[in-house]
């Protein structure tokens, strides 16, 4: 924008994200060539040409590019029709634009969905951008001089005149704790920034102004606390699932056999229509200890759902680890293994939508650190020896805390500070910093709500869940799943992230989350359509591939070979020679866990050598 855009440049920029929208690609160049918008369409609602984007208002003044879904578009359309709006398509895209024309920025709080969108006003010569409440869809931008560019993925900027490179200072701020990056404005790339969840922005006359439009804690304060019950949560959950099946394309679910995806799959089965041809895709590992297929199969049988078993083995991993790192385009604590193959299988069978259980762990306390928060709370309140005992027993069922020494070490590190509960264990890898060519200190996570005294008086488990949901784990997971699914043109939808459900879950009493040492109580007890054995599982540890055995069996050597690249050796971002020597030494000593803990650096080396 502003500095003038050529058709070939915007074409190239747009084409770089072709994978996100393989159904149709187009660009809009404003009459004065001051703005250009590109869009790659994944057609899910109204698959006709009338909903192609960039989407123009009937008078041609406003042009919209939109990534995501507004699930309540049918209800909003009725409301807008009563206000005199006329519609010519059956898509949510048209509803979004009319909602903006009618309500301006207030339209955002009426939307129930996930999005990153931009609207160009050709009369005012201004651009409006917005991102959804919880950051399901990403929106990156580059604002250099008078030129402003934005995209759903960072790799798009590589095609621009002012190309991007990894910034060692930015990297050194987050290398030891990569999850934290999603709550920061900066990215690992120089001059690329992001709109944060719940923000909108205007760009006009060369100036960018950013505003926060959504704040979960303020909403919770208005609604009160400990006042949502089973019925309310059940009813919202059912509706959240129903509106997420609104699709003219085929609908799948990614089923792991854990509680979250089992609950979602069971419920979606009730709402799916014949044209959805609903099918569950189950990732299955050749290592029996990690394989969850038998659990997932039980869910399918109980709900009479057809399924596809997607086998993920050593060879797949060797073939895809590098490609997946490039697809994720960011810093990660561990390699992403398997998910990409599941989405590829969906696409191969003509599916475009996958409904999944993201957010369940962060809303209802699914991670061991949440049990730590529950235990720490009972210790510092000194009021329930049973809670403490149940917490210890529950933790001792999880790997690696089955070993009593680890269990004791974990208890010794219990803290009343939510961030300390997070940083302990593998999350804090300060030793990685010595490889980066920068002296910049690690970024300190700033939780905005701690400035509010009321927030500080909340229970420890509430705060840990709130911070994991808004600042740490969930935003990081959402970013990765967006990249991995959209690489294959699959849109992930998450009923637990319906904002009404999120508010109800945070308002619910602690007993809906962890009680008697059992995690995710509402999902186990309040949604009664799970097979009993799954509802009572305490051994699930997510979609966890057998990384160490794969490393031993050849993946480590493959990584070693991939790093042996002149670009890695000559890197000015990090000590490439040092990294290569360290990895060689770790392989020589068979220290595979330690090797895996160096993944954030390997990940960066793979990214940099691809540029």
């Amino acid at each position: 924008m502003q500095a003038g855009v050529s058709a070939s440049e915007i074409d190239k920029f747009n084409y770089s994200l072709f994978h996100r929208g393989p159904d149709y690609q187009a660009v809009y160049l404003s009459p004065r060539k001051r703005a250009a918008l590109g869009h790659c369409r994944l057609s899910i609602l109204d698959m006709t040409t009338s909903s192609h984007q960039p989407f123009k208002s009937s008078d041609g003044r406003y042009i919209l590019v939109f990534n995501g879904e507004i699930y309540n578009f049918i209800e909003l359309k009725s409301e807008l029709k009563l206000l005199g709006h006329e519609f010519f398509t059956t898509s949510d895209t048209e509803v979004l634009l009319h909602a903006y024309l009618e309500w301006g920025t207030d339209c955002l709080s009426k939307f129930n969905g996930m999005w990153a969108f931009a609207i160009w006003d050709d009369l005012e010569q201004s651009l409006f951008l917005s991102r959804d409440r919880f950051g399901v869809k990403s929106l990156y931008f580059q604002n250099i001089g008078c030129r402003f560019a934005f995209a759903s993925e960072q790799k798009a900027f590589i095609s621009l005149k002012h190309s991007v490179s990894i910034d060692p200072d930015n990297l050194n701020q987050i290398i030891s704790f990569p999850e934290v990056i999603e709550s920061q404005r900066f990215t690992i790339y120089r001059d690329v920034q992001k709109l944060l969840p719940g923000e909108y922005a205007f760009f006009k006359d060369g100036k960018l102004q950013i505003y926060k439009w959504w704040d979960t804690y303020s909403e919770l304060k208005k609604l009160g606390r400990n006042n949502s019950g089973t019925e309310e949560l059940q009813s919202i959950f059912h509706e959240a699932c129903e509106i997420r099946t609104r699709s003219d394309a085929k609908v799948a679910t990614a089923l792991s056999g854990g509680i979250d995806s089992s609950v979602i799959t069971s419920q979606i089965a009730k709402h799916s229509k014949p044209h959805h041809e609903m099918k569950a895709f189950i990732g299955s590992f050749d290592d029996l200890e990690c394989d969850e297929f038998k659990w997932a199969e039980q869910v399918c049988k109980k709900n009479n759902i057809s399924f596809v078993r997607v086998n993920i083995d050593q060879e797949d991993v060797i073939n895809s680890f590098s490609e997946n790192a490039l697809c994720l385009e960011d810093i990660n604590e561990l390699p992403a293994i398997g998910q990409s193959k599941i989405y590829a299988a969906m696409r191969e069978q003509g599916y475009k939508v996958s409904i999944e259980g993201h957010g369940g762990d962060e809303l209802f306390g699914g991670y061991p650190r949440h049990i730590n928060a529950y235990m720490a709370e009972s210790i510092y309140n000194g009021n329930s020896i049973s809670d403490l005992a149940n917490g210890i027993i529950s933790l001792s069922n999880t790997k690696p805390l089955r070993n009593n020494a680890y269990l004791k070490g974990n208890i010794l590190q219990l803290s009343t500070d939510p961030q300390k509960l997070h940083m302990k264990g593998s999350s804090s890898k300060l030793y990685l910093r010595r490889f980066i060519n920068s002296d910049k200190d690690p970024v300190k996570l700033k939780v905005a709500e701690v400035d509010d005294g009321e927030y500080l008086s909340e229970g420890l488990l509430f705060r840990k869940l709130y911070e994991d949901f808004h600042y740490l784990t969930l935003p990081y997971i959402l970013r990765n799943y967006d990249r991995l699914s959209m690489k294959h043109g699959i849109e992930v939808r998450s009923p637990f992230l319906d904002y009404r459900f999120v508010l109800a879950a945070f308002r619910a009493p602690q007993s809906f989350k962890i009680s008697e040492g059992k995690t995710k109580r509402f999902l186990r007890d309040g949604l009664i359509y799970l097979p009993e054995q799954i509802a009572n599982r305490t051994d699930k540890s997510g979609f966890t591939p057998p990384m160490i055995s794969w490393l031993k069996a050849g993946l480590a050597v493959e990584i070693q070979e991939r790093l042996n690249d002149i670009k890695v050796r000559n890197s000015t971002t990090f000590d490439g020679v040092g990294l290569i020597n360290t990895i060689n030494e770790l392989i020589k000593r068979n220290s595979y866990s330690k090797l895996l803990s160096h993944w954030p650096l390997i990940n960066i080396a793979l990214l940099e050598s691809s540029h």
Partner: protein
Amino acid sequence: MDILEERIKLHLGISDDIYTIVIWGAGQFGELIYNLLASKWPQHKILGYVDSSVKQVTFKGQAKIFPISELTSMEYDLLFISSIEYESEIEAQLNSLDIKLPGKAIKLTEIPDLLLLIQELHASRDYQKTKNLIYRFPDVEAFWLLLSELATDPHESKLCYECYQRLSKKR
């Protein structure tokens, strides 16, 4: 006060002595101990870590990591063992170097005068006092065993015994 902080405080005692300290194990837990000591007890001097993974002196941030072989020539008052999983192996290694536990070397999973304390509690059969001690020392299995004996509620007693088992047995 967090549990680890209280545990270190207990081992440092209340005297005004200024100690020179070494930490065995430069892993994440060792680092946590280092940071706590440096921030809460700045009067003591931390020489650094000793760790079996290094063959010569290296650095972890500002702190030095020494090879284990240098331990005998180092001058220090207290050595904190940060590797809980290998405590007994480290203890054996320390014995071979003639460094006795308790005294100079500290196992953080233990508390000073534990046996005496347990004997007193057994004698007094004080349920509330035992419970309060568990809130301070939830990782010490002996208190859970005792509480399982003192609890009148059979459910609570069973839970406490289960905890004792989980904390004491290698599974």
